[in-house]
């Protein structure tokens, strides 16, 4: 975990620097009248210090066994594919409409879970239609209709 902890510390440090820079562009105010940039600035500063401490702590930590050095990565390929499906869903939602996009993403998830085709089609279709009825028809949520109008 040492390498991964150092890496996560570095990512957090980057976030802190970027957020700190953005906060510095907001009015900081004075101690007697703190401005909108006051809290984000010190929160970014604290995050930066904690990220540095995380990197330092991981670096000075006693060397670990090969087993402990690895985080519990398992099924990362499938997880990455699922993330890709979710991003594609968000990109396609407005154009494809709720029913098509949701049915599609559910089918993709079920395929990634190695389900048989009848299960994939059945579960995706029924779930997309049922959730459409629940949210769009019953709860009156204006779900995206897409270019095809549904």
């Amino acid at each position, binding site marked *: 975990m040492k390498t991964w902890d150092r890496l996560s510390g570095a990512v957090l440090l980057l*976030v802190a620097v970027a957020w700190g820079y953005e906060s510095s562009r907001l009015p900081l105010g004075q101690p*007697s009248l703190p401005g*909108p940039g006051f809290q984000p600035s010190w929160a970014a500063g604290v995050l930066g210090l904690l990220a540095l401490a995380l990197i330092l*702590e991981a670096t000075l930590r006693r060397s670990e066994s090969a087993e402990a050095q690895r985080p519990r990565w*398992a099924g990362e390929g499938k997880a990455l594919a699922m993330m890709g499906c*979710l*991003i594609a869903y968000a990109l396609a939602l407005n154009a494809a409409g709720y029913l098509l996009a949701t049915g599609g*993403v559910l089918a993709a*998830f079920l395929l990634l*879970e190695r389900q048989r085709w009848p299960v994939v089609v059945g579960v995706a279709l029924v779930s997309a239609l049922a959730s459409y009825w629940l949210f769009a028809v019953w709860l009156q949520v204006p779900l995206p209709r897409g270019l095809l109008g549904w």
Partner: protein
Amino acid sequence: MGALEGLWLGLTVALSPVNLAYCFLGVVLGTAVGVLPGLGPAAAIALLLPATYAMPPTAAIIMLAGIYYGAMYGGSTTSILMNVPGEAASVVTCIDGYQMARQGRAGAALGMSAFASFIAGTFGVLGLMLIGPPLARFALRFGPPEYFALTVVGLTLVSYLGGTSMLKGLSMAALGLLVGSVGIDPISGYQRFTYGLLTLSEGISFVPVAMGLFGVGEVLASAGEPAKREILKTRLSGLLPTRDDWARAGGPLARGSLLGFLIGTLPGGGAIIASFASYAVEKRVSRHPEKFGTGAIEGVAGPEAANNSAATGAFVPLFTLGLPSNAATAMIFAALLLHGLRPGPLLFTESPALIWGVIASMYIGNVMLLVLNLPLIGLFVQMLRVPYPILAPLIILFCLVGAYSVNNSLVDVWILIGFGILGYFIRRLHFDAAPLILALILGPIMENSLRQSLMASRGDFSVFFARPISAALLVLACVLVLLPALRWAVALWARQVAGGIRPVVP
């Protein structure tokens, strides 16, 4: 209003047909959430938050509270029958509960777990009822410095008690504070980090963040786990524990209830730590500690009692100070805000029907849960046969449509996905999501109280140490932060010293 008077008012509210129905729905959903591994109460409450918009506020909070304490009952079922905790607070129950099931005593383990949950749950509600009103009256004296100190202590305790590393917990809390600063500044009206997106003006909504971290993140992190889980084939008869079981479980049950309630009231305490603490205490006080891990009923009764009274105890800071102490109560805090209510000490005076209605519903909910978890246990066990590969896409579906329906905006779907991916890495790299979601919710309270304190004191930072309560709380926070750092430095120094001294070989 006195406690008995309040309880009477609460019973008239909770016993209305609508509230009874929502209480029943809440505890059934809670039991289901507890039984199903991979879906915790925080995720379930986040998933259902959008659906509560149309409900009356009291009914909504009664239902969401039912999900939280109901999950504590259900979690033990999976622990006992599958050796897989259905809910994080039931991890400890696996140790002796599963061993009891393997010895053919699954019924007694499940029965004891249900009775312990009921007794401790009821004890917790009694504690909430007696402690809540005086604490709320006391909290009315709190000003901005005390609230600032309370939020600091809350976030520090959550980071200290929650995960494996305090540094990682505090980092998540700082990240949550930053995320919470997005939107219009409440004091100056200045737009912060919105980059022209109108949806972000009101801040990053906690619903898609919570759904992402606890729902999507959990599904992504479970991607590599085995899809098939074995349910122990055993008799579920004999759910009533024997006289000997009761004699052995009486002490653990009483100690677990008290310890759980006390831990539950602490920010960051919660049911998980309570169950672990109870197991440790029982093993220490037992005359036969060697029997723990081999199917000792004390190892089931204590932790199950502790996690239930802790779940109820967590409502004490929420209702009296307006400070959620864990992710699930943070979601209930969010629900109160969504329904236009201001969580805090004034709730007892401004909305007595709601508060007492919720408290009274907990008594009723615990009775419902006992009935659900004894005769109907077989029904819930059947739920475990729903394959996770089918369940996971359905969780994703609810997250996606739930996030969209918060503001009818695609931006919330992007936030959900972004925090879902973050949730995956949080789990994989052994960070903890609870401090992030708590900081997101507590951030605005912390910022407002900090700025109001400084404005009132004309920029004098000593205002936080001039008042005894805020001073004591801030000192506690400093000690909590410095303790691990000190321990780490001492260990490092000791290692270096030991490295310099070579052992003398005779």
